[in-house]
């Protein structure tokens, strides 16, 4: 249960002929002649895994909503779902689950036929911690985190996602990665460089 740690000191022969230096240098020379592993960032990019917690987005109404929950919530919140628009039912659950609630600014608009629709949904991502609690709280699977990570910009205004931006990210995401299997990551050849020495063949996972 307890393991004593000990390393035997250098004997006389090793100190004379610098054996410890030579052993160390043999390791570095072996590494010197193996392939490099770094990805040259602007030219080669790693594709983030599907579960990556990046910028937020709103999934649009396209018939793939979690059925029992969506109608029930739309009904309870008296919200009228518009096709290819955000699924948001203005239930404020995401704002309640957030550690920093005042980054959300949510408002609904009354339509003529008495139903409601989401009009304002601002998220000030300068305050956000990207923890994903709001994504768990959303009952209709509308708010989600896409894999957009290059979010640097020149003005604080770009860090504020309004409804149009959220829907745009949602549409792009639904076409691009909605149908992907929930795999640990997509191994493009940039990631392959790092994992080559591990002799990892992730291919066979596809057909599993």
């Amino acid at each position, binding site marked *: 249960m307890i393991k004593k740690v000990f390393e035997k*000191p250098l004997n006389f022969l090793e100190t004379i002929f610098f054996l410890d230096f030579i052993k160390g240098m043999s390791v570095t020379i072996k590494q010197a002649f193996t392939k490099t592993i770094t990805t040259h960032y602007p030219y080669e990019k790693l594709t983030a895994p599907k*579960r990556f917690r990046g910028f937020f987005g709103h999934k649009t109404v396209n018939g793939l909503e979690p059925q029992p929950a969506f109608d029930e919530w739309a009904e309870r919140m008296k919200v009228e779902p518009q096709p290819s628009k955000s699924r948001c039912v203005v239930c404020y659950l995401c704002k309640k689950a957030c550690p920093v609630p005042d980054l959300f600014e949510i408002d609904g608009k009354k339509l003529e036929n008495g139903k409601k629709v989401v009009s304002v949904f601002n998220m000030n991502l300068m305050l956000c911690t990207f923890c994903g609690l709001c994504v768990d709280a959303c009952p209709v699977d509308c708010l989600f985190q896409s894999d957009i990570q290059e979010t640097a910009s020149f003005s604080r205004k770009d860090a504020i996602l309004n409804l149009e931006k959220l829907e745009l990210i949602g549409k792009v995401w639904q076409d691009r990665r909605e149908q992907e299997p929930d795999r640990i990551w997509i191994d493009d050849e940039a990631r392959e460089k*790092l994992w080559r020495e591990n*002799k990892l063949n992730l291919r066979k996972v596809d057909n599993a």
Partner: protein
Amino acid sequence: MQATEKTLNEIKAKIPYVDVKKEKLTSVVYVQKELLFNVLKAIKEDFGFKLFIDHSVVDTLEADNRFEAFYILYNVDTKERMLVKTKTEHALPSVEKLWFAAKWAERECYDMFGVNYEGHEHLVRAFMWDTYSHYPLRKDFPLGGYETVELPSLNESTFGDNLSGTMNYKRTHTYVPTLKDLEYTERNRIKKKAQVVLNWGPLHPGTHGTMWFLFDLEGERIVQTDVILGQLHRGVEKLAEHEPYQQFLVYTDRMDYISGLCSNQAWTVTVERLLGIEDMVPLKAKYIRTMMSELQRINSHLLWLGTYALDLGALTIFLYAFKEREKIMDIIEGITGARLTISYTRIGGVRMDLPQGALDVIESFVKFFPKELKDWEKILSRNRIWVKRNKEVGVLTKEDIYFYGLTGAVARGSGVFYDIRKLEPYDAYSMVDFDVPLGENGDCYDRYLVRVEEMRQSIRIIEQCLQKLKTMSPNEPFMAESGDPKKLKLTLDGIGLKVPAGEVYSSGENPRGELGFYINSKGGLKPYRVKIRPGSFYNLCVYPHLMENRYIADAVTVLASLDPVVGEVDR
């Protein structure tokens, strides 16, 4: 586990004027303020509670004795933990003579609550600058602080203040320290005795974080040294009082940002113990949590090894360690979605199940990593320069460990068997077997060997978790379902999770020492007081003692072997 009935009665018998109580989760000794010093001295010497864990104060806002101070002690031989409590209006006797760690804890309590300690050698503020006039952690101090200073708005210079809704930042701001304040703090912190005082300060590549050391130098020998902390102080404990239990999880991985998952696990286990639902957590969640936090431990030890070798000159080891660390980051990013600020565990389980292919990737990593570790050991472990730079440098005896409240690999380096995963097993640590490495003479070399051995033991744990997880079917539950949602609402987002009244102290074995949470809850959604027991803060307080009349070149080695992380030191 906490002190048994028998020891409490023994204490009651020996010291009559004390009253003793064994609650559900903690065993407490109540004492009057005047007799505190003698009682603590007796408990330390006669009953063997030598190891100092933590000390802080709860602001109860009662009319007369407003502050309720508590001391957490641990008996290494009988493996028992105990709380000693006392009440006071504004002053307490300083127990700095019994434990040096109390000196820094008392500085923090003075800084945060204004509790005065008689007999304290040099009572200054721990985190704030000396000319700061308020006491932030008191209940009557507003969460946002007193916005008194007019600062240029954080809003856009082009858009001015007309951003829509919440996006406008207020123009007024709390007071920010000026250079004069820092100069006063600096002069007040150390009295110059030798030739020159060197600022080994916040912006220095050797300190790996914003720690500000003041070395009093005689040529290159350090005569005396002191530390100014607080550059990265974000008031996490104040935030904890205004956050529901699940939402506070997000702040835990920002404290020790290098081992985020272990901190998340420590917090969730503490709350689960307070709720008493530890056995409701499904087996799969326990194994996933253990495996992920062991991966995070290797990740953190790799960063330690890289920066340690970098400080001592072996630059290639830094990049080799980061090559392996990048692989672990890929695994963690694939499973949890984030690389550094991982809020993956939930109270009652984990957020998502393992994705496809995760077990294969971890298996390939676990097979390849020991070979790489053996290569690096060839470069470092028996290298005469490495041995000469680390042997007999920063020696810590067993008594030092208890006196300075050191935990983690620093304690195990001196041969003290103190590993929370073995003493108070949580999650699946009781179901996996692994060894705890112990050093002999407690110098930097032993701490290096202990941490490298810990990486190998983590590999063993991950292998066992892998075998077990392979046998579990994909649709096993990874999150606990509460019996009746009315009484206990266990959901992924954690809205409406009510916790019964009571207090608990439980801790997790972080790579940098014991990360402990003392929660004092009065029932309801939010905790009343959360004290975080950081491993790095107390490991750092031994640094001035180790630095007496040594050279600056050793300053780097000793600091890197204590491996403090500023986020956890300043909280």
